[in-house]
């Protein structure tokens, strides 16, 4: 009977997987390749027709200060949010890994920011950080930290606001991934460390952290890719401010070039550059940190 199962296996198997492969190829892989092709053309976003320009788009960007600023803002944004998410995520996971009353409730609530629509997250925080009526300014003034309201969406503070909002929105991903791994650390390891006289801090650095190494390797990789390519959170925060320029990261710049200046060729070039930066940094990351036994 096992034989019969295998009989027409090859054909049926391929038929069953083909719709998925077809969709992934035509709607994900092909657009990426088409984007590479478009990056060598001057093309209007709406009107048909294009003109081959070779490497002109790339050369234009290399000499364009807006492009370099977007790389700079993108780097500041992704590095700071990733570091904060990882640190806060590990601390939060350590807390909810403890046994206490209401733990399941806290674990559930912790994940809320990650599953709500980004639009809602931005609107909530724009209301909290509103410079006239916002609760944050009110509380900070009431406690006496500041004397005058802070303009959170102004040019001096908008990057800070963006970082706070992004960390709040995305750190739950780190919490859940790390927590899942923490629960599988054998308690005997802690008991042995305790017998050896290690305090809580040493136990964390010598037992917990080494055990988390593999999961952190993957989490940092995924979060880096997603923060570096984050569009909606950044874009929605720029709306209706005036300090848009000060958080114009690479994805936002690519979007603006395509849909506000209608330069689809240049927009594609920016997307290709983003892709190249990701591939190169991922390769370096793997070379530096990957151990043989991983993944």
């Amino acid at each position, binding site marked *: 009977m096992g034989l019969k199962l295998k009989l027409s296996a090859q054909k049926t198997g391929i038929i069953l997987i083909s719709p998925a492969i077809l969709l*992934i190829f035509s*709607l994900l892989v092909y657009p990426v390749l088409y984007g590479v092709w478009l990056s060598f053309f001057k093309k209007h976003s709406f009107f048909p027709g294009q003109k081959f320009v070779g490497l002109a788009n790339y050369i234009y960007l290399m000499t364009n200060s807006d492009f370099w600023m977007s790389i700079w803002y993108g780097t500041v944004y992704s590095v700071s949010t990733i570091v904060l998410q990882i640190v806060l995520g590990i601390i939060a996971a350590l807390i909810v890994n403890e*046994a206490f009353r209401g733990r399941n*409730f806290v674990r559930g609530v*912790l994940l809320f920011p990650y*599953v709500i629509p980004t639009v809602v997250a931005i609107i909530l925080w724009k209301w909290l950080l509103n410079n006239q009526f916002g609760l944050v300014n009110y509380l900070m003034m009431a406690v006496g930290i500041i004397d005058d309201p802070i303009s959170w969406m102004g040019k001096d503070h908008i990057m800070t606001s963006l970082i706070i909002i992004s960390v709040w929105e995305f750190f739950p991903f780190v919490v859940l991934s790390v927590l899942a791994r923490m629960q599988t650390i054998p308690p005997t390891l802690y008991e042995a460390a305790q017998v050896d006289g290690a305090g809580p801090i040493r136990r964390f650095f010598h037992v917990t952290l080494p055990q988390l190494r593999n999961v952190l390797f993957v989490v940092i990789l995924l979060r880096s890719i997603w923060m570096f390519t984050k569009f909606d959170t950044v874009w929605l925060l720029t709306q209706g401010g005036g300090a848009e320029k000060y958080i114009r990261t690479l994805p936002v710049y690519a979007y603006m070039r395509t849909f506000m200046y209608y330069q689809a060729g240049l927009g594609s070039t920016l997307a290709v550059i983003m892709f190249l930066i990701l591939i190169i940094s991922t390769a370096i990351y793997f070379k530096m940190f990957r151990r043989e036994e991983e993944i």
Partner: protein
Amino acid sequence: MKPKNNFFSFRGQFIYWCAAVLTISTAFPFFWMISTSFKPLQEIFVSPPYFLPKDFTLANFDRLFEQTRFLTYFRNSVFVSACTVLLTITIGSAGAYSLTRFKFYGREKIASLILFTYMFAPIMIVIPFYVLIKKLGLANTHVALIMAYTAFCLPFSLWLLRAFFQSIPIALEQAALIDGAKRIQAVIYVILPLAFPGIIATSIFTFILAWNDYIFVRILITSDELKTLSVGIADLYNATVIDWGMIMAGSMLITVPVLVFFVFVQRYLIAGWGAGAMKG
């Protein structure tokens, strides 16, 4: 089971305080949204602010339903998300079944290609995608949105469903076949019921992704009556005068379905998370 930390010990105190700070900092913005959405206009801007509405009102919701197209956006969101889930689950289950039950040339290559495309972010493909959709004459249709979401959800759905199908022993299917069942019957009566938790979890992750999306709607949809909630509410927000009460009421109504689904799926969540279900 670890013993509960004693509330009166130093360690217990410390943990309870940390947990409280953690809960308040994640939940407070939601509380504030709900509270604001039930406040009358004059209470919204009062200083010092009231934490709860003194004069509880539904006027914000009335304005939202009467003066805006919120209900249309809501219907569109439900329709697009539901179609995406159906399509993704059908194609994804067939694909995952194939990847776990059949041997064919290039199977492992396909699996790793799928994992690779999981890393793609919308901004990396949206520009050429838009140009292609325009060429196909599908710009400004829900079909374009459903196609985009299905393509985006397929990699993680396949990955997740594959993990679930792998956990179902092949022997069960063989037993059904020996008992004289046809293969399709074996799948419907043996495999699908066992894979059900995985299918539900995958559906909900897919639903949340489609429901929350902003960028594809922003780019692919231009008519107001075809917009979904994310873009609809963002445009209400960007209107000249911000009606905070109404915006908060709308935000709350967008969030509720996601949170309801989320609470439902919480017990499947860890399993899905392990297989890398959520992106964003």
